[in-house]
Structure formats: C-alpha cells, structure tokens
C-alpha cells in the first residue's frame, strides 16, 4: 500500500520519474515552436493589423469629422452673411421704392399744381377780357341808349 509513495523504490508509483520527463519537455518545447508558427505569430499579426487599422481609421474619421465641423461653421457663417445681405437688399429696395414713390408723388403734385395754376390764370385772363369786353359793350350800349334818348327828345 505504501510502496507507490516511495520515490523510485519499485517499478511504478505516483512519483515514478523516468525518461518521460525529458521527452515530455522536448515535446512541449516542440509544441511551443509549432504553436508559435501556426498560432501566435499569424493570429498576433492579424489582431495587431486590425488594431492598427482601427486606430488609423479612427484618426481618419476624427480628422474628417473636424473637417466637416469646420465646413459646417464656414457654411453657417456664409449663410448668415447671405441672410444679412438679403435683408439689406430688401431694406434698400424698400427705401428705393419709398423714395421713388415720394418723388413721383411730389412730381405729380407739382405738375397738378402747375396745371391748376395755369388754368386759373387762363380763367382769370379770360374773365378779364370778357369783363373788359362786357364793359366795353355796356358802355357802347349805354352810349347808344343815351344817343337814342337824346335823339328822341
């Protein structure tokens, strides 16, 4: 019962160290090299390539995002400028319109005044002449009446 505990006392036992040990060591070393060639190196390359790819893609994306933000700000500024310009344009146009309207109105009023003045003057002149004529006629008639009356007498 205790024989299997004794180191190398008899054949067999739990602590039976023999040529299995070095051969197993050689086997494990070989396995290390095989796994290094078949597993660790290729898989490591793939994983690290991917990590590199992700890092560069991320940097690129960040760069692009920054660019987009810059462009966006640019466009916003442009838009604002354009809006201001439009507003100014509209204001100018409104002012122009107003001014033109006033000018036209003033001209028309002046025109109207002038023609009314002229008409009045013409009317006055005509009335004057008509009055003078009437006066002349009346005087003539008066003279005629006076003459007839005197003749009849």
């Amino acid at each position, binding site marked *: 019962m205790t024989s299997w505990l004794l180191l190398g006392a008899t054949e067999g036992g739990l602590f039976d160290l*023999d040529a299995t040990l070095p051969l*197993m060591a050689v086997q494990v070393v070989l396995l*290390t090299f095989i796994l290094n060639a*078949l597993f660790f190196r290729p898989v490591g390359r793939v994983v690290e390539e991917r990590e590199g790819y992700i890092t560069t893609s991320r940097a690129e994306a960040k760069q692009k995002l920054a660019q987009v933000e810059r462009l966006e700000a640019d466009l916003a500024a442009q838009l604002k400028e354009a809006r201001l310009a439009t507003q100014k344009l509209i204001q100018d146009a409104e002012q122009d319109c107003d001014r033109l309207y006033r000018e036209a109105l003033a001209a028309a009023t002046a025109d109207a005044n002038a023609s009314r003045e002229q008409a009045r003057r013409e009317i006055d002149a005509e009335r004057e002449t008509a009055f003078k004529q009437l006066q002349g006629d009346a005087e003539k008639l008066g003279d005629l009446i006076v003459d007839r009356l005197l003749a009849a007498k």
Partner: protein
Amino acid sequence: MVPLPLALPFAELEVGQHLYWQLGNLKIHGQVFLSSWVVIGALLALVVVGTRKLERDPRGVQNLLEFLWDYIRDMAREQIGEKAYRDWLPFIGTLFLFIFVSNWGGALVPWKLIHLPSGELGAPTADINTTVALALLVSLAYFYAGLSRKGFRYFEYYVEPTPIMVPFKIVEDFTKPLSLSFRLFGNILADELVVAVLAFLVPLVVPLPAMFLGLFTSAIQALIFATLAAYYIGEAVHESHH
C-alpha cells in the same frame, strides 16, 4: 497500490500504475504520451482549422483563437511587462493551452472506455513527469530570460534589496519549480481521484458536483501555472530602478 479490495464490475481504481514503453534502456510512461498526443493533436487541429483563412473580419474558429490570443497576451503583458512580453508570449501561451486542454481533456474525455494492458489514460498533467518537465522548462525559461536580457547583472537580483536575501533567493530557485509542479500534479491527480472514488462508491449523480468542481479547478490550475511562469520571467527581466 492496486485494485481496492472491493471488486465491482464497472469501476476500478488504479493509482501509480503505468503502461511502460521500453526505449533503448529507458523506460517511459506510455499512457502519458498517448493522452498528451491526443491533447496536442486537438490543439493543433483547432489551430490549423482556425488559422486556415485569417481575415480582418474574423469568422468562426478565428474568433475563438483571437480571444485566446488576446487573453494570453494580456496575461503575459501584465506579468512580464511591455518590453519583454513579446518574446515569451508563445511559451506562456503554450503552457496555458497545453495544461488547460490536458486538464479538461482528462476530465471530459471518457478515457476509461479505452483499455490499456496496464495503467489507465487520463490527463497528462496528472503524471508527475509532465508537471516536473513543465516546471523545469519554466525555470530554464526565467534563467534564460534574465541572463539574455541583463547578462551577469541578472545576479544582482539575488542581493536585492539586501545581500541577506541571497540564501532565500537561492532556495527560491528550487522551490519555484517544486511548487509549480506539485501544485499542478496534486490538484489534477486529486481531482481525478475524488471523481474516481465517488464514482466507485456511488456511480450515479453524486460525482457530478465533484466533476464540475474539477473542471473549475482544472481551468484555474492552468491559469495559475501560466500566470506564475509569466511572473517568474517578468521578475527575471525586470529592471530595478537605482
């Protein structure tokens, strides 16, 4: 020790019996090599299948392999440090994978269905030869790591922080492989024995919790062995700051 007095037809307990192969005038344990070849075959099959077509968008087994690689890299990097871990990643990874697959293979593969003339198949790590071989490889590895990186300045490690430490550090060089090998050997063998004894006494249901515990222990032991190996290497290549 051989068959316990109780001779039931379905379960027989054998401890310390080996299938001996004669190699010249050397004797080796055949059952250890048989099961280790199965383990190595399974590992290689997995690796070959998984790396057949490596892509940037991983598919199928490549995912598993990348997960394992990542896990092992993190372990190695954490213990050894950023500078030197690349050189030792394959060694640490091989230790972890070999021990892990051995342990789980020992617990999950129904080895008892295969009858050998003597001894029985099981986890290769339940044999002291395997674990001592692995532990001695770790010792060689950390000596080599320290000497190749620092030359003879490696031995400064023995007098740090004070020269009083010299005997302890020397003793440590012996206790490290001893504890590594016996921890793994003891855990795996004990687990197999517990399951075997329980199965021997009550063949149904009762051994199941012990089996699950065994799976857990097996994984933990593989992790401990690999982590400690990496830690010893990291200790050897560590540059102390003066």
